[in-house]
């Protein structure tokens, strides 16, 4: 058996009995046990992990580990996470009562994706791809209003068609933020966006 690692948690009882507990230093990793030959790309497994992830977040805020990390033992998982553990401990203690919420905004115009054939080197192509992604922007008035609605967080460029604002929100404020999102929709009916969450610490799992 191997474990698909879902997150890093402050307390053991944040995990049990929803998932297996894999101790890692002062923290605890949550893992979903699967057969060694289970392909991680399996749709049913993805959906199972997504469901457990949501249930874990209902319990307490945790550091989200990107899907694809599987370990054969608790020791292996802990060893691979070792360099992160001190930072994660600090973040979890600081943000236990907060969750992430994200607002994904569709840009008015999709920036053209660079064509690999136009570049002689892979490095130049990657730079152009990065530049094209960062060229995506949204209405400045909407940008300000979005920050007022969910808070000043981090704006992220994810692709050539959208931008995303991620913010830390107190667990008590999730409903208020959703209501503010509804108001934002009424104020900017022509701008397609999606307010979603709560999510575990994903963007803010990096140092603040």
């Amino acid at each position, binding site marked *: 058996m191997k474990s698909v*690692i879902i*997150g890093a948690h402050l307390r053991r009882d944040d995990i049990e009995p929803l998932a297996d507990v894999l101790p890692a230093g002062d923290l605890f990793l949550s893992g979903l046990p699967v057969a060694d030959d289970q*392909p*991680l*790309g399996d749709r049913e497994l*993805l959906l199972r*992990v*997504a469901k457990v*992830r*949501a249930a874990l977040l209902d319990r307490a805020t945790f*550091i*989200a*580990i*990107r*899907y*694809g*990390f*599987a370990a054969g033992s608790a020791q292996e998982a802990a060893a*691979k*996470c070792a*360099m*992160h553990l001190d930072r994660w401990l600090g973040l979890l203690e600081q943000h236990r009562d907060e969750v992430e919420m*994200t607002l*994904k905004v*569709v840009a008015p115009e999709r920036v053209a994706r660079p064509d690999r054939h136009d570049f002689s080197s892979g490095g130049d192509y990657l730079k152009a791809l990065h530049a094209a992604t960062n060229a995506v922007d949204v209405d400045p008035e909407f940008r300000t209003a979005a920050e007022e609605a969910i808070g000043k967080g981090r704006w992220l460029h*994810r*692709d050539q*068609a*959208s931008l995303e604002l991620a913010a830390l929100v107190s667990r008590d404020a999730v409903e208020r933020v959703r209501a503010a999102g509804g108001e934002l929709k009424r104020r900017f009916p022509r*701008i*397609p*966006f*999606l307010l*979603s969450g709560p*999510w*575990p610490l*994903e*963007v803010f*799992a*990096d140092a603040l």
Partner: protein
Amino acid sequence: MDEELEELTLLETLDHLLDRGVVVAGDAVISIGDVDLLYLGLNIVLANVDAIIRTGRK
């Protein structure tokens, strides 16, 4: 829940699962050698944007 909204929520959930959070020790999705999964991730991002546009027009 409206079917389109349900689809959007599922896409957003999978997008967060596949494209957010800490990448541990180079054990990223890419390194498991599962090209289909990476492809799935990209498709989800694109489909997600399209679904937001469709839902926004309603």
